[in-house]
């Protein structure tokens, strides 16, 4: 099995899907000739041609709007929003149209669409290139939101997203692109949407997280293991729909839950996860549910020390988990 970076796993996934299904088209800002600003789509235009890998204008509403039309009419478009921060001009298309067409048309039309967007900070991207936007979309019925945390999951979730008959938002953490590596099978495999993955088993504390924070949580867990604290790490992988069963199972097992995300606290995924636990697993809890999240600051700062202070780090996760274990 080859060891691929997170970015390479996504590229290989795209290549495999496009080879498998000729209805798939990619388009977005600079995805063609340049191969994407992060090189995720590098070589794909050469392989599949300009008709299937298309450079679009700088107009996110149009990118998503035309993709919806293409999807309704039988293609399987995978538009890219160059940075998740730029997705907001398209929010009307995503929320009002893509999410609702199946419902509005009583099932006559549906939108098999995968919107890819790099998100997250820690790469010195400052205000417009660092945001976490998943919670906005996780709120919307009719959408699915996946956030892979490993190269293996990135490829498998992409396959699932592509074959889904309804719109899926696929958020890839740009700090993970080259920092995360892992074994990825060459053959096609599908990781079902809505299924969390227990990345590490433990006894004392459960960390529930997703995206880049999965690897951070695993690092924290390793350090705490040396201190005798046994930490379980549940990777949500999909933040809508949530894997309620897995969330409750780990919560009941350890009785102490730490929810981690880079997105800020208020209105974040952690609030929803926390509510589910207190609704369904109250009598298993041995401590208040704890959330560790980005600060309530308008955006990621540019200054390196401030950016570091903003980011959730393995150290912050470790300290919070330790505190919870001691409670």
């Amino acid at each position, binding site marked *: 099995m080859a060891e691929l970076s997170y970015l390479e796993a996504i590229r290989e996934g795209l290549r495999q899907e496009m080879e498998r299904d000729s209805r798939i088209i990619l388009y977005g800002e600079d995805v063609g000739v340049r191969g994407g600003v992060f090189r995720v789509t590098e070589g794909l235009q050469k392989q599949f041609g300009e008709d299937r890998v298309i450079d679009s204008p700088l107009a996110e509403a149009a990118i998503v709007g035309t993709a919806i039309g293409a999807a309704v009419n039988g293609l399987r478009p995978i538009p890219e929003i160059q940075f998740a921060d730029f997705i907001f001009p398209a929010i009307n298309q995503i929320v009002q149209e893509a999410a609702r067409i199946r419902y509005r048309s009583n099932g006559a039309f549906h939108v098999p669409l995968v919107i890819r967007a790099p998100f997250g900070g820690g790469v010195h991207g400052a205000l417009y290139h660092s945001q976490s936007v998943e919670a906005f979309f996780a709120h919307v019925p009719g959408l699915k939101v996946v956030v892979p945390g490993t190269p293996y999951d990135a490829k498998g979730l992409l396959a699932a997203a592509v074959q889904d008959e309804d719109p899926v938002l696929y958020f890839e953490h740009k700090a993970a692109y080259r920092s995360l590596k892992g074994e990825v099978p060459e053959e096609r495999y599908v990781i079902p949407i809505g299924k969390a993955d227990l990345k590490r088993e433990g006894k004392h504390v459960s960390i529930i997280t997703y995206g880049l924070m999965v690897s951070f949580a695993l690092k924290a867990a390793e350090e705490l293991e040396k201190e005798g604290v046994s930490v379980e790490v549940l990777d949500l992988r999909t933040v809508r729909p949530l894997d309620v069963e897995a969330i409750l199972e780990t919560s009941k097992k350890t009785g102490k839950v730490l929810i981690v995300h880079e997105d800020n606290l208020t209105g974040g995924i952690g609030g929803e996860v926390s509510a589910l636990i207190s609704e369904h697993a109250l009598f298993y*809890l*041995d401590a208040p549910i704890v959330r560790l999240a980005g600060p309530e600051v308008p955006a990621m700062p540019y200054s390196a020390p401030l950016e570091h202070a903003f980011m959730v780090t393995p150290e912050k996760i470790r300290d919070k988990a330790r505190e919870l274990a*001691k409670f």
Partner: protein
Amino acid sequence: MATEVVSMPQLGESVTEGTIGQWLKNVGDPIEKYEALLEVTTDKVNAEVPAPVTGTVTKILVDPGQTVPIGTPICEIEVEGTGSESAEAPQTSAEEAQTVEAQTAPAAPAAAPQEGRGRYSPAVRRLAEEHGIDPARVNGTGAGGRVTRNDILQAVDHKGAAPAKTAQPAQAAPSAPAASFALESAPAVIDDGDTLEPLAPVRKVIAERMVRSKQTVPHAWLMVEVDVTGLVELRGRLKNEFKAREGVSLTYVPFMMRAIVEGLRAVPEMNSQWNGDSIVIKKRINLGMAAATDRGLIVPVVKDADQKNIVGLAKASQDLVQRSRAGRLTMDDLSGGTFTLDNTGAVGTVLTYPVINAPEVGIVTMESIVKRPVVIGNTIGIRDMVNVCLSFDHRVVDGAEAGKFLQVIKKHLEGIGPDTSIY
């Protein structure tokens, strides 16, 4: 350099923590061995803690008003004659000392959250119930001594093998979970100009006990009218002579105590305690007497009241009153009560609904003695009348026994005439 670390002393057998009342010495003050160093308040006692050594107070680790467990370091004294070393090399060690201070400082507040005891997580409650374990008897290893889920699971594992919890039966009663008296209270409305008085430790204890009593004990209430004309005459005749001979005033309290003792002898259920699935009939008769002090209400106890005559009761009760006003009661003076007398007549009332001093079963009041026209046979006389009110735990006794108890008191008091002997 020798530093003596002073810890929170144990001020009574069942006492687990103490509150710093005030520091009588400040950092830098010299102090003699046995000189008063600070005041500590426990449930209801104030005590001065003497210095264990002669030296200089170098560090105060716990602020006034803070409550810490027994044994927690509360201050440091540099022992005399040994403390010059640090002064000799101040330049080099100044920085070091600062970092040491910075490191040790956070350690002090860590001892504060003892709130972990008596509050259990849902998981702990569920597991304890499922396995029939009393979490109050499990040794907590969590923050602030909190009993964690793992502590319960471990107790379950050990339950079959060695019942470690029975090793300390004496702990059972005092470690019963503290009722939280603030949780369900309606929030106060604070307007501009209102002032907030922080709760004194004594106030907290009173609040907690009152809430616990009223919430857990089904109070029932009875009252009898007692004709104490004879008693008033007797006291009027004896009081000067008594004061001269015994050195204490002759009040009505010892007579009331005698009457209560008679009542408790006749109805032993009144001298008992509710114990969940049983009733503990107390052997000793120890009468608590509610007393108002400027620190709040306290209830010192006259031990073995049934073995004392009027003189003995008078002396014992006045001794307690005097020492309570001076703040010089010991823990022992305040514990072990089996029944309580509240001399409400002292504040001029004629009718009171007293709150039971749980786990006792009853509390009686002696109201103001007032002259009233009373029908006796076919005539009307002016008599000295007093109301005696009783609150009792209806789980333990019913109205019949409680009524009998009051009748014995009434009969005893009414049987006292101008010529009754008090010896």
